[in-house]
């Protein structure tokens, strides 16, 4: 789950980090009031879950409150990579002397958090990684010890040579790591981490993603979810416990297992079709899940056919068949359904489908070819 910049900054402040001030508003009047409070010179930043806000015109500098309100007018309601801007963050401008980068991810290979810093901040860090990898200093943090003081200090010395700044940076890195762990984050980033002309080090942008698997035990963090930033289909899939990703094609896919679901999409493409979605109904065999899956898929007017590809293992085929029959009964499905079921309790499943007047094929190639054909 991605957090908005203003939410990420709140977490950082709560962890004791130096962060520049700022408040959100959702109309130009509110922005004007905030700009006046901050003395006129402010930055107005679109709060959407997307990188490249600056390039898209979603970040504007204002020299007085009127200009800030005009910027807000332009930014609020604009679309950035398909997302509508509903809120802006208003912050006083800072006297920036240097811009650095600091971020934490989980490293697959090291199986631990990895803290990355670069004295070249304020730009696309992936670009720095590609063009000048030596400018990025990485540190694998042993989860048994956490980030040790000397490690934070050592990284901070890569960012600043003035000990007064190094000390502040080490403190921020230590707290960034704390915030990362204590909030169950999968990513936490400060870009840029600035030093001011007055010798202060602080975060003026913040990006945090929370590991979805942590949300069950962190209600305060889970409450930060912005319902407006999620499509109706995504919200419904999440509520039903389905993995769902909307795509642009017309073959609706309903598969058990993420790997098989990806392979099914790939095979639709291979046979000349276009998948409308990724959808994994998971290892459970709850008929309600199938109903929810069908509702999500059929809500997309572009979908011309629904393809079921089920290989029963932990999911029993008879349960899925039962779910399909129930769902078809409950819903008014106007498009064709093609079904492939194999594995645990396959025979039972075929009987259940047959009773309801539905047929199933046994091969994946077959069912995909049929679906592509029906989608035209």
């Amino acid at each position, binding site marked *: 789950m991605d957090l908005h910049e203003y939410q990420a900054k709140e977490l950082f402040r709560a962890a004791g980090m130096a962060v520049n001030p700022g408040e959100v508003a959702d109309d130009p009047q509110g922005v004007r009031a905030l700009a006046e409070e901050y003395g006129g010179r402010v930055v107005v930043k679109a709060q959407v879950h997307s990188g490249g806000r600056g390039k898209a015109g979603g970040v504007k500098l204002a020299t007085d409150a009127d200009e800030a309100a005009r910027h807000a007018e332009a930014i609020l309601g604009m679309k950035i990579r398909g997302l509508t801007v509903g809120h802006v963050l208003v912050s006083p401008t800072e006297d920036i002397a240097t811009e650095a980068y600091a971020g934490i991810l989980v490293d697959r290979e090291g199986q631990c958090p990895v803290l990355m810093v670069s004295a070249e901040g304020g730009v696309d860090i992936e670009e720095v990684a590609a063009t000048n990898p030596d400018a990025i200093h990485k540190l694998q943090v*042993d989860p048994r010890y956490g980030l040790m003081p000397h490690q934070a200090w050592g990284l901070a010395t890569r960012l600043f040579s003035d000990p007064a700044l190094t000390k502040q940076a080490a403190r921020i890195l230590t707290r960034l790591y704390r915030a990362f762990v204590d909030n169950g984050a999968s990513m936490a980033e400060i870009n840029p981490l600035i030093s001011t002309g007055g010798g202060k080090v602080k975060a003026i942008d913040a990006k945090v993603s929370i590991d979805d698997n942590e949300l069950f035990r962190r209600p305060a963090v889970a409450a930060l979810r912005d319902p407006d930033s999620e499509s109706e289909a995504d919200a419904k899939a999440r509520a039903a416990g389905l993995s769902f990703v909307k795509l642009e094609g017309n073959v609706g896919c309903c598969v058990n297992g993420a790997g098989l679901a990806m392979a099914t999409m790939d095979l639709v493409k*291979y046979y000349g079709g276009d998948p409308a979605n990724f959808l994994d109904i998971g290892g459970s065999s709850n008929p309600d899940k199938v109903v929810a899956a069908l509702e999500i898929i059929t809500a997309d007017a572009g979908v011309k056919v629904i393809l079921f590809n089920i290989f029963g293992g932990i999911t029993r085929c008879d349960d899925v068949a039962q779910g399909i029959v129930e769902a078809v009964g409950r819903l008014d499905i106007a498009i064709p359904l093609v079904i492939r079921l194999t594995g645990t309790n396959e025979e039972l499943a075929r009987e259940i489908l047959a009773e309801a007047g539905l047929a199933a094929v046994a091969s994946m190639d077959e069912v995909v070819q049929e679906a592509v054909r029906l989608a035209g």
Partner: protein
Amino acid sequence: MSIYVDETTRVIVQGITGRDGSFHTRQMAAYGTRVVAGVTPGKGGRSFALSGKEEVPVYDTVADAVAETGANASVIYVPPAFAASAIMEAADAGVGFIVCVTEGIPVLDMTRAHALARDRGCRVLGPNCPGIICPGKTTLGIIPGSIVTEGPVGLISRSGTLTYEAVHHLTRDGLGQTTCVGIGGDPLIGTSFVDCLAAFADDPDTEAVVMIGEIGGTAEQEAAAWVSANLDIPVVGFIAGRTAPPGTRMGHAGAIISGSSGTAAEKTRAFEDNGIKVAKRPAEIAVLARESLGR
């Protein structure tokens, strides 16, 4: 021969009294797995019926189960909130091989669980994996016994049902398996492609290997390089997620293209550059495997 486990492996089940745990324990026992005990905290002292005839004791702790039964492997079917802790308990009790089926474990929990497993020198398979099956010998996890058969192919996969799909084709085409290993769809897993490849390399019965990868991470690239440098039996590959958009998690927590890294194209290229034939469709995996074995 099989890798990691065989018919002598003494297996305990953590979460044996749960819905999934009890179902799959009976499936395993029916297949022939030597299930010697179960563990469910608070239910120690009861017994669990493997079948109409056989039952095994349930213990409160893995340490008790190991002490009483001499178990050397564990399969974990406990909810995500407790699964990392269950792995740590098994590792701490000296269980040498741990299969964790559970999906949805917080990644930071797994950083600690994997660290402890390394400290204790035990191997974790998964989490978020279907387990391991040695046809005709034993199965630990949820891979349906009905789709496998004994034979010369070793199979390694990040996926569950896609593995079944591939095995299904192999079996139907007369290519049995020495062992099928589902290494798991999470970003942090205990046993990698390379680990399994090295184990298959030491198994004289494995004459070819099938590797089923997917988008996200660089495990397939590392495996390809390892194959090229170390393995002299044929390897057939498949990569799922060619149509996945970047930056979006495709179900598996580990299946995400970060920036331009971890794409199916990149992985396919790594396979091909290292002499691994790549199937375009799941059904083609068996075809290429048969060809590579000259059958």
